[in-house]
């Protein structure tokens, strides 16, 4: 085994994902470059990858989010942008982890719609989702009925 020296120790990397009809990754990239000041910015097909000191990255994200707050989403990333262990330019095919974002991109329109709704509705008036309610187990009497109802 070889010694390992981390390339960007002390930095944080975050994804900025855009799901909007009005804003493109290029739009937020331009705004991010305007306020970057030491933050490394990489434009991708779904948004941006930002890397730098935590406070600088958070500042850029706060500025970028103002463009379309309900349609811009952020998450942490472990690796710096372009890292050969993860970047598809070195590996080929989709980057490991892209499929997770791809799956959630199909749900983001519902989440964006909900955030817009919650802007003018109180969340306390919205019913609890069916999935959070405790599901009761099948009792023996119902099971017996099901068995008896079965065609011979």
């Amino acid at each position, binding site marked *: *085994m*070889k*010694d*390992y*020296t*981390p390339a*960007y*120790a*002390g*930095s*944080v*990397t975050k*994804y900025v*994902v855009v799901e909007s009809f009005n804003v493109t990754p290029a739009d937020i990239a331009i705004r991010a470059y305007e306020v970057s000041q030491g933050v490394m910015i990489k434009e991708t097909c779904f948004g941006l990858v930002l890397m730098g000191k935590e406070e600088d990255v958070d500042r850029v994200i706060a500025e970028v989010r103002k463009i379309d707050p309900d349609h811009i*989403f*952020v*998450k*942490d*990333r*472990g*690796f*710096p942008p372009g*890292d050969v*262990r*993860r970047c598809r330019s070195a590996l080929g095919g989709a980057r490991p*982890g892209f*499929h*997770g*974002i791809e*799956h*959630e991109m199909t*749900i*983001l*329109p*519902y*989440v964006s*719609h*909900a*955030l817009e*709704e*919650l802007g003018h509705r109180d*969340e*306390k008036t*919205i*019913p*609890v*989702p069916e*999935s*959070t309610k405790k599901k009761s187990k099948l009792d023996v009497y119902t099971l017996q009925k099901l068995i008896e109802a079965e065609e011979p």
Partner: protein
Amino acid sequence: MAKVLIYPATSLILSDMVTRFGHIPLSSAVAIRERVQTAGLESAPLQITPEEPKKGLHWAAVEVPSGVRGRMALYGPMVDECEAAIIVNDADLSFGCMGCARTNELLKFLIRQKDVPRLELDYPKDEAEGVEFVAAIKRFLNGLGGGK
């Protein structure tokens, strides 16, 4: 600000919601970043060394496969640290090899065993469900108190 463990630990939506409503998400990216940014011996791609399955013994028994124990070295400290948890149960994106599947089961079990506020949901399938999904998360996170 409460530390909220999210499952799936790589979820963009949950990570964003927790940050948006003023708390700290505990996700796998942060655990990986910690390893990627620590000097030591090179062990590509995730800097998971032979030490990790030993650390995993804290959360999984010795007869549990080393793949699960190695993964638990990432997730276990987050379970210990968390003050609340949000679980999405029908998360197909967390599907992986048998090691991932068993780790996911163990992780969910450990979260449910721990005495912390917990919210369990399914991903929304339309706009109406989306509103209920986000409202449930917002109610839950506001209820934790101390949000930014």
